[in-house]
């Protein structure tokens, strides 16, 4: 009998109370010493042939018969009101079937009621004004230019600190601060803490707007069959899209089916339904034809979400031996024109290091820029730049080894929720990474900035804290077919992480089958519910459900075999896809022989994700060590190597693990050194409209990456002992690189991206200061 309990659940850096339905008993947890056949061994992607073969069909690849193409006209102004809109010219254009705008589309509330599907007040350059639907994409775009709009241009603000000023343009009726006030947190007595401090270090950190730039742009295809809607969507959350579309269109959820079998990247930007899906659905209903809207790369740059820029100030107080006695943190996150939840910038400062006195404050500020979205460890990448760069500045100030300083401030328990951790093998991660990177080679940070001479090497470090526990609900079904092959059905997504492969490994492990005998079917709301592929939760949420479903199928196999082999079920062994009677080796049959005898009577299992253990905090941990070479005369940084070691519990697929680590590191590398989504403050328009102006790491920039895993299962987190790995590897990379640059040339540039120009400027500014008085190493005022 299901019962409902209330639990604290962590997701994307935020903890909230949620009702959890307990359906029954979970399975016993896989023991640390248990040996496995497939789990924990490197397995090539089960869908690799489809993806490398060009056979995999992404949303962008579907062209159903009779397809109509939609294109969206977007506001050229950062803030404006539509005085007059005339779509008649576009409607008459060749090939055009329909034009939607506020004049004729339903007023569907959007962004939690802050706006509507088509709003007459436009709050960012790129906001939807109208949508044209035509026989071809080119025709739709041509016709878009025939729409006449008379805009009343209004004053705008794109800088979050400026948006906090009392006389700033008011972006929403409720003001420019999300939630009306900053998010605050206090423990202990910060003033007293600083009073007890022997040294204080203060540092300002700025991080830039960063774009996700998934290679498959955002887009949907919608098709109606009578009053039933099918949506093909490039999404991280098929069930979320179904729920949102059913609500927006006021139709029952069972009339909506969402499919996303292959998906070309999301990184958090595709966590929910967006307007284009609703627009395609509305047009498809009206035109009785399938309708497709895919973003162009330019639209991807202005209206697909971003990691919002931050301005942070952190002050650390410590005793001479390095013990932290106070942390004060203030962060401002410019969340764009629309955002429902704040950026958890303060997460690392609150929890990563042991400190009795902590005060944090985070302002989430609306600006007239594109909406922000979750982006791989939102808030924590930025927050780690502030915290962990301040930590190395502190280490340099005290003449301590930065690793020793971190160990001195090792937090054995969760100081925020005042409870223990399910497991924490960060010490082990430090140890493994330090040895692999040769941390003992690190020399002291130069006391004065180095402005001349040849390129100089430096080593820097940063730690990682993040969630990734996953949670209920998630469900799975396993079916053993007549030929002994297995279908797993689960309504999750594989957004490129390798979830399909890891889930296949789990099912194959339990059923003792070769992995080739298992097919994982996902990306379809006709399959059992699974959560969004975000928050590093897919394997930790879905994996335990798949295991339970496979275990149930296994039990049914054993019981059926017992009746055929005339033995007690407890005497039946399932090994290597064969069923036998213990101690009687010749009484046996293969799984496929058993299922073959059963014909279409099907062995099946259903599984659910059990609840997380109560009263314990589940975290992933890790550390990166960056080795860089800096040319002090040009300011150029070459990253030589990133050594990454993470504690993410049991690793199901070491091959997938390595790829996740490399992917996170490379995205972190881009954020540290070159990526910059620029909005012109005067016009409020976006300056980078694609890969020609938005610089992402290419082959020649990628350094050696050593991906290490602690690899110890979590003893209580879930029945597999797994935690997530998707987000952790991006978190420490930028901070580690900044610290390595500081270690090389003696200035800590904490304004991302750390371009050669910024490094040179900092070197010059700091040596100017050094001339007047001997500069302490560490934080550079910026």
């Amino acid at each position, binding site marked *: 009998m299901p019962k409902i309990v209330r639990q604290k659940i962590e997701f994307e850096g935020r903890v909230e109370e949620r009702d959890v339905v307990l359906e029954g008993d979970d399975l016993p947890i896989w023991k640390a010493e248990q040996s496995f056949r497939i789990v924990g061994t490197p397995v*090539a*992607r089960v869908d*690799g*042939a489809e*993806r*490398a*073969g*060009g*056979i*995999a*069909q*992404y949303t*962008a*690849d579907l*062209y159903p*018969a009779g*397809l109509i193409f939609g294109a969206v006209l977007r506001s050229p102004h950062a803030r404006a009101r539509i005085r007059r809109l005339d779509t008649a010219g576009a409607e008459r254009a*060749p*090939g055009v079937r329909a034009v939607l705008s506020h004049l004729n589309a339903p007023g569907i509330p959007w962004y939690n009621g802050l706006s509507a599907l088509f709003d007459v007040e436009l709050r960012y350059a790129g906001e939807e004004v109208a949508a044209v639907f*035509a*026989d*071809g*994409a*080119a*025709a739709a775009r041509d016709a878009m230019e025939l729409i006449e709009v008379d805009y009343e241009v209004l004053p705008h603000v794109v800088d979050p600190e400026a948006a906090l000023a009392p006389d700033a343009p008011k972006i929403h009726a409720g003001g420019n601060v999300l939630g009306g006030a900053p998010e605050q947190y206090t423990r202990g007595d910060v003033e007293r803490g600083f009073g007890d401090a022997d040294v204080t270090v203060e540092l300002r950190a700025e991080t830039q707007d960063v774009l*996700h*730039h*998934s*290679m*498959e742009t955002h887009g949907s295809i919608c098709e109606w069959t009578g009053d039933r809607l099918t949506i093909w969507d490039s999404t991280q959350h098929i069930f979320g899209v179904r729920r949102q579309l059913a609500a927006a269109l006021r139709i029952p959820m069972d009339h909506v089916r969402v499919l996303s079998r*292959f998906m*070309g*990247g999301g*990184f958090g930007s595709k966590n929910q339904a967006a307007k284009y899906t609703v627009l395609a659905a509305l047009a498809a209903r009206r035109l009785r034809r399938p309708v497709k809207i895919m973003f*162009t*790369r330019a639209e991807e740059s202005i209206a697909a979400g971003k990691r919002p820029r931050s301005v942070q100030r952190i002050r650390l107080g410590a005793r001479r031996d390095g013990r932290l006695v106070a942390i004060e943190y203030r962060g401002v996150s410019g969340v764009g024109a629309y955002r429902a939840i704040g950026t958890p910038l303060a997460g690392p400062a609150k929890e990563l290091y042991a400190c009795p006195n902590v005060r944090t404050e985070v302002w989430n500020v609306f600006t007239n820029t594109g909406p922000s979205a979750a982006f791989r460890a939102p808030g924590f990448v930025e927050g780690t730049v502030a915290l962990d760069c301040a930590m190395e500045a502190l280490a340099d100030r005290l003449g301590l080894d930065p690793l020793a300083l971190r160990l001195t401030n090792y937090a054995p328990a969760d100081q925020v929720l005042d409870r223990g951790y399910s497991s924490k093998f960060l010490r082990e991660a430090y140890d493994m990474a330090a040895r692999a990177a040769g941390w003992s080679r690190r020399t002291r940070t130069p006391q004065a900035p180095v402005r001349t001479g040849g390129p100089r090497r430096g080593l820097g470090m940063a730690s990682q804290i993040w969630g990734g526990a996953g949670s209920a609900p998630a469900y799975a079904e396993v079916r053993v077919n007549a030929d002994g092959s297995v279908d797993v059905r689960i309504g999750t997504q594989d*957004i*490129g*992480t*390798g979830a399909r492969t890891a889930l296949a490994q789990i099912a194959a492990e339990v059923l003792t089958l070769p992995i080739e005998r298992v097919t994982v079917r996902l990306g379809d709301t006709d399959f059992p519910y699974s959560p969004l592929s975000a928050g590093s939760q897919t394997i930790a949420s879905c994996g335990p459900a798949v295991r339970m479903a496979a275990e149930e199928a296994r039990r049914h196999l054993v019981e059926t075999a017992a009746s055929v082999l005339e033995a007690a079920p407890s005497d039946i062994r399932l090994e290597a896809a064969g069923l036998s009677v213990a101690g009687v080796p010749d009484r046996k049959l293969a799984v496929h022989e058993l299922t073959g005898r059963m014909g279409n009577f099907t062995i099946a299992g259903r599984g659910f994700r059990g609840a997380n253990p109560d009263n314990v905090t589940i975290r992933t941990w890790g550390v990166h060590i960056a080795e860089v070479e800096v040319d002090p005369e040009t300011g150029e940084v070459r990253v030589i190597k990133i050594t990454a070691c993470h504690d993410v519990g049991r690793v199901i697929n070491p*091959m*997938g693990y*390595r*790829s996740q680590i*490399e*992917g*996170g*590191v*490379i995205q972190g590398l881009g954020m540290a050194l070159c990526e910059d989504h620029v909005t012109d403050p005067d016009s409020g328009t976006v300056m980078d409209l*694609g*890969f*020609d102006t938005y610089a*992402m*790491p*290419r*082959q*020649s920039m*990628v350094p*050696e*990456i050593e991906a290490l895993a602690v690899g110890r299962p979590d003893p209580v987190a879930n029945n597999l002992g797994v935690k997530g790995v998707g987000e952790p590897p991006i978190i420490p990379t930028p901070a580690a690189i900044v610290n390595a640059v500081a270690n090389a040339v003696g200035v800590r540039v904490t304004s991302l991206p750390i371009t050669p120009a910024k490094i040179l400027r900092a070197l010059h500014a700091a040596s100017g200061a050094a001339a007047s008085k001997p500069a302490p190493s560490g934080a550079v005022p910026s």
Partner: protein
Amino acid sequence: MPTAAVSTEPLHAVTVTVNGRAETLHVPARRSLLQALREDLSLTGTKEGCAVGTCGACTVLLDGRPVLACLLLTVQAGGRAVETIESLSRDGALAPIQEAFVRHDALQCGFCTPGQIMALEGLLRRTPHPSDELLRRALEGNVCRCGTQLRIQAAARELAGAAAHHPGGGPVAAEAARDRTSSHDVRRSR
């Protein structure tokens, strides 16, 4: 079949050899080869990443050399030979270059993968044993957001290096790759 062109645009008849087969297309002048491949010929393995020549996702071979299909008008491809990702596998079996990508986990979401493979294929046909530097340069224009660059290098190095180090009889996959490369070389040389 989707009609990309609206009724007022004049259509041009173009014959292109696509994956060894002559295809006659009727397209408006502005229709890119990428659109024609994807929408008129249903060869959706070639991806659109940007449509303006900045990402390499639409890389195909034109007369054996890698080009960006989004920057080429269909009418410009008239009388020439185009090869797409779909041409590499035979009867559902992956080509060695594709197998190497899978084996090295040189793909994550997979959206840029066909372009990466075709760019590398183009290089290896001309230069079967490229240096690491040449490999990286040949793939510099192919954007991957998931971060598979090092895995792609590993796959490419195996394809390039294994043949070089075992000229008489390397690993089966590498040898097959070389055979395949030389047969294409013969066919393309003129």
